[in-house]
């Protein structure tokens, strides 16, 4: 029997500081063993425990899409002891990945529907994964219009600029990227995510919304969808809570009876409306 607590060994292939405050850094990881890469079969929305031996593990959403090959991309905010250590690590260093963990966005149920994706700050990671998956030639035809709304404080805080620019230029999706306040050199949208959402969100008919962002963004975006006539079943959100085991045992990430690590992190608003607000 496989011990599911043991991380797969990976090598850091590439790192990149993503934001002007240098708090967000991306890590491209390659598996040391091909069989591990094969065993790590994931879908957009799932996460993994990044393991730095001697420091511990942290749950981080997978930013890459399985359509991009075997290497895994993670964008990590520098907040605690594991992430601080991780930010000092360089290409070639060995670390671990445990997963994939949790459920994923309901990609199958979304087929044939219009999709609106709303991301705030660095919560865009698993939605980057989703966008790459949706826009892949094998999948794009299965979905209707795709609207991507993404906001950050300043242009320098936006992640994955090359990629969303490419999505914009491809004409495959309606891409709306906004920053909080006017900034020099920025000729794109200015305003908070809820405001932009109200302007560009499609009609709720035959549509699904995926929302991931800081609590304040979610709090103000939800009423916008309500106002536009969306039903709670159509709104899909990804939660995060403190985690250790990642497999629904250790007891800390639960929201009522649901474990964010195992039953989530993806829930519909209809599900969350029936649960305590412990997230």
């Amino acid at each position, binding site marked *: *029997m*496989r*011990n*599911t*607590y*043991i*991380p797969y*060994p990976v090598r850091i292939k590439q790192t990149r500081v993503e934001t002007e405050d240098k708090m967000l850094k991306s890590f491209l990881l390659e598996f*040391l063993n091909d069989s591990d890469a094969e065993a790590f079969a994931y879908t957009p929305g799932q996460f993994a425990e990044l*393991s730095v*031996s*001697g*420091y*511990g*593990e942290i749950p981080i959403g997978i930013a890459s899409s399985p359509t991009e090959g075997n290497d895994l991309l993670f964008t990590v*905010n520098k*907040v*605690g002891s594991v*992430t601080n250590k991780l930010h000092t690590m360089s290409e070639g*260093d*060995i*670390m*671990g990945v445990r997963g994939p*963990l949790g459920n994923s966005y309901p990609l199958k149920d979304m087929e044939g529907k219009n999709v609106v994706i709303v991301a705030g700050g660095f919560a865009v990671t698993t939605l980057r994964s989703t966008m790459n998956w949706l826009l892949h030639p094998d999948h794009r035809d299965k979905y209707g219009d795709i609207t991507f709304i993404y906001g950050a404080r300043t242009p320098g805080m936006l992640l994955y600029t090359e990629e969303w620019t490419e999505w914009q230029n491809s004409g495959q999706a309606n891409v709306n990227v906004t920053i909080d306040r006017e900034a020099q050199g920025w000729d794109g949208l200015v305003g908070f995510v809820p405001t932009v959402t109200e302007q560009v969100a499609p009609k709720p008919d035959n549509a699904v919304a995926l929302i991931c962002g800081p*609590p304040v963004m979610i709090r103000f975006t939800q009423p916008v969808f309500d106002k536009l006539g969306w039903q709670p079943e159509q709104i899909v959100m990804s939660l*995060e*809570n*403190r985690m*250790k*085991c990642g*497999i*629904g*045992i*250790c*007891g*800390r*990430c*639960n*929201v*009522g*009876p649901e474990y964010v690590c*195992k039953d989530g992190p993806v829930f519909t608003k209809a599900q969350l409306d*029936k*649960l*305590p*607000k*412990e*997230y």
Partner: protein
Amino acid sequence: MAEKILAKDKLGGFLEGLTSSYEVFAPQESEGKARWARLEDPSGALWEFSNTHLSPKDFFFPQSECMMRFKNLQDGEEGMVMHSEPGLDNKRLLLNIRPCDAKAFQVLDLIFVQDEMTDDFYWRDKREQTTLVGLGCSDPCPTCFCTSMNCGPHSTTGLDVLLVDLGDKLLVKALTEKGEALAQGLEDASPDDLAAAEAQRKSSEEQIESTVGMDQVLSRDMMELYDAGHWSRVQESCLNCGTCTYCCPTCHCFDIQDETQGEDGRRVRNWDSCMSWLFTMHGTGHNPRGTKLDRVRQRFMHKFKYIPAKRGGEIGCVGCGRCVQLCPVNIDVRRVVNDMNA
């Protein structure tokens, strides 16, 4: 398999036999309390005791347990790669475990082993290597309420063998293949023996006077229970000390930490407690269960509402009463659940 009989004058030889094939542990007296310890001398096993001071959960879920090791060398060939600790290298037997504690393991099995991914190697290995020989209760405590929690003083769930003390002999009821291996060669019980064991079961059940109602807790809407007014009263006296979580046979929350010393490193798991504010605190400082009320409510809701909701009606409590005995501010789980049920 039919019930068997083991005469007390043959017990010494029987236990000697067990210690040759198993590492045997049993409740023994130490510092005035019944505590689990390795059975070196068969005569040291307790046969008359209420229950052990602490639950035997650490035989399967140790308070601190090394999960994996690594070489703390970034440049070495095998550096930083985690390797699992091996499983147990011997068979264990827990003698005279109380039925409530065995029932707790059956509840925990549902949590530690759920599917391919949620399959706790450390828990499962120890469970598979261990035989549980229970001893039916003849003299329950005033704090016992097992009969309200899908359990009872002679409950067999989770056990391999149930023993019933009939004075000069033991009734031996083998319940699994592991149990049958132990009972082989013993003589069959007579109808009188069976009647005596049954009478003891009835008498023990009658002695349990505390009852806890669960019907409303199970059927009532979750948010109605969550928002109930009595939590503010329960949390007023709670110190968040965590004693209840450590002595509880079904509490299973844990933390995982890394430790290094020179070139050696390991990842360990330690018991944790939902009573701690740090337990749920995010890296950002945000805390989903930031108040004492949140944490107190979590413990009771988890056992009596969330676990039943997720695990087919199983309750996350077996009524052993340890938390009632040990709570420093006299919070009584029976009263809390009756309030939830009111």
